[in-house]
């Protein structure tokens, strides 16, 4: 049984003339331990899809199943990493990370332990008392990542996590994400990441879901069977990238 399963999920928004459909009858499953990337042109509803999986946004019709159970509202087994970090500027790095744990009503000692652990894991040692404003973009997203990891979710949801960063910073952070995910003691086994950068999807994911635009539909489901670590300039890497590109271009 798939860990997460979407059944005919559609989403429409009210619009000046009737309603605007952004997602049309999406159905797919995500296995435990899988790294899934969702790619597509802007406006294809991929970020909305991620929010439906988390339960921040309700689907207009269709179902989201987790472990075979229908989920209504927020799925507590998921944690989201946001595109523009979504950090509270008036809280220190530590307080930002702890906030997610406070919401889960963990005892202070346990909060302290998890916060320290994940600050260490993402390489934020020495920045505990800094404010997000004082950090670079890459460091800020580390805080966002630590905050999500600290709640030790079964599924990590990432909404274009590297697109607000410069290219070099993004490359470094991607590698660190892979290391964290592959480490034996990682509580997070399953990752769903939304991106519009196809190379990023090919580099990281086990599987790529390709969405078309207007309304968003599933037009491709590609397994990535390249050995890790993947060579970004290798021939098979490029072939796969081209394949995803052509899938998107055909339907655009």
């Amino acid at each position, binding site marked *: 049984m798939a860990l997460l399963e979407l059944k005919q999920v559609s989403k429409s928004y009210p619009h000046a003339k009737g309603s605007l459909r952004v997602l049309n009858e999406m159905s797919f499953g995500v296995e435990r331990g899988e790294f899934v990337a969702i790619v597509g042109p802007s406006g294809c509803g991929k970020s909305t899809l991620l929010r439906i999986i988390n339960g921040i946004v309700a689907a207009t019709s269709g179902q989201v199943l987790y472990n075979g159970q229908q989920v209504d509202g*927020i799925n507590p087994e998921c944690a989201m990493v*946001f595109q523009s970090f979504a950090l509270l*500027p008036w809280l220190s790095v530590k307080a930002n990370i702890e906030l997610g744990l406070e919401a889960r009503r963990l005892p202070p000692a346990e909060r302290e332990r998890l916060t320290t652990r994940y600050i260490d894991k993402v390489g934020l040692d020495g920045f505990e008392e800094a404010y997000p404003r004082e950090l670079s973009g890459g460091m800020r997203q580390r805080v966002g990542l630590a905050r999500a990891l600290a709640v030790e979710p079964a599924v990590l949801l990432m909404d274009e996590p590297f697109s607000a960063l410069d290219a070099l910073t993004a490359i470094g952070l991607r590698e660190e994400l892979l290391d964290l995910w592959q480490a034996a003691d990682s509580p997070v086994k399953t990752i769903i990441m939304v991106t519009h950068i196809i190379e990023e999807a090919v580099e990281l994911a086990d599987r790529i879901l390709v969405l078309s635009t207007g309304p968003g539909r599933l037009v491709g489901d590609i397994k990535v069977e390249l050995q890790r670590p993947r060579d970004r300039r290798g021939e098979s890497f490029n072939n796969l990238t081209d394949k995803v590109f052509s899938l998107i271009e055909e339907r655009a």
Partner: protein
Amino acid sequence: MLGGLAAAMEQADNSRRAIGGAASILIVAALLALFFGFRNYMPVLHGPRLSVSARHLPYYAFCSFNRMLVAYVLALLFSIAYGMMAARGRIWERVMIPAIDIAQSVPVVGFFPAAVYFFVALAHGSRLGVEMAAVFLIFTSQAWNLALGVFESTRTIPDDSREALEAFGASGWLRFRKLSLPACVPKLVYNSILSWVAGWYFLIACEIITAGPSTYRLPGLGSFLMEAANRGRNGEMLLGLLALLLIIVAMDLVVWQPLSVWAEKFRYEFTSGAEAERSLGMLHAIGLLGPNIYHAVRLVVRPLVVIVQGLFDAIPPLGPRARERVDRIARFAGYAALIAFTAIFIYAIVRGLEALVRALLMPWPREVRQIPAATVASTIRMVVAYAISLGWTLPCALAATNSPRFKRWLSPIAEIVGSMPATALFPVIVVFVIQVTGGMNLASILLILTGMQWYLLFNLLAGVNQIPEELKEFARAYRLGRWATWRKLDVPALVPSIVTGSITAWGGGWNALILSEYFVYRGHTYKVLGLGALLDVATYETGNNLMILLSLLSMVVVVIGLNRFIWRRLYNVATERYRFD
């Protein structure tokens, strides 16, 4: 060591604030004294008798609207010239922006009697002087915020746009028409809406003042309402309020709504759909009427614009030589005007200081001893009214962060009620409270409240709109819960709006205070101990110049003191810690 340095810097900061504050107070005092110097020329004016009948209402409405229009056009022209000049460079900015700060800290309503003396003297004792004073009063309530808007928009024109025009060799006039002016349009339209709200407030206030115990009269909606209240004609009072509401709603539909939509296309930043929701629109159903009327107006105005444009285009283009000469002459004229203005200003300050010293050397009246107690009493009233304002607007704003439905429902209602000038309701409120409680204390606080609460509410609602969508999603995704979301996200995010809202609310409150502590109703004077009452007694009963001057100055001292030592500091903290970037 570091602590010592910080303390020393704080000390230096404090003394700079104190010196700046003292200088501003001195300037205001000098100008006030100068205005009072004209009091001796004041003849006794007898305005037209006000008739309280529905038949004359359209005429009174027309009079009021006319004053508003004249003042607004003047304020608009002034603000464009002033704002653009202030944006020319650091030196200009250093002088011109603090000047606006000082101007804003004067409670305009208290200034009105002084303005009447000055303008009546200027108009050789004719009634036109009273009209000019009213227009001047409205002007001062509109111009500053417009000028700041122009200044900010001109300053934030992206460098590349400016450079692109320069690269094409665009001359001054073309640059003004195609770059500087369009860049100001969004802020000008938005601030114009606020300016009209403020303008109505003060227009009604000065008409009420003249309809009160004084000897000059301005026919208008405010004086109509006051007379109706005084004679106990409730039906006419209601009609007057209705007429005012009608004008305000019509203005919104025909002018402000289409203008707001039009102004959107001049924006440099591209915001998401969330912004569009925050239209200043009132009721959507009547809103459908607006565009039609707008198109009709446009049909008439458009040909005129085309003709004027054609005239400008018909001027033959200048050669580079001639253009250089024109530029040089323009620059020279600019400097000449600046020097002349500075000279006049310095002369006015010197004369003002002279008048101030002369006034202070006169024997001091016995009421002076009441000033400290009155200052405390008025400040307490302000604090109570402020606490009530914050007490209901903050929960409203927090509820709006929770429920977009509540916000959609609250915003338009607040816009209609908030854009009604509260001064128009003063007679109604006072008459009601006096009849129920027989005292003025409660009425006074209620009146101050009407001058404060909307500034807070509008600022807070604007703040709610600025909370980034992703942060709200974060709060939901991590299941922070209502209480934690308010405490960790919403309240801190609203801190800058609370501070800016409080600054404007206190400004509005001081103005309301002057009208709220002293009220004449059916020949009986109701008053409480307070600075506003002292000022009004001196203006209407004893006619003591020095008392007017001293009570106004005490008010200015409190206003500038609070601004410099509390609000400015809070503002700095708020914008440093509690902003998104």
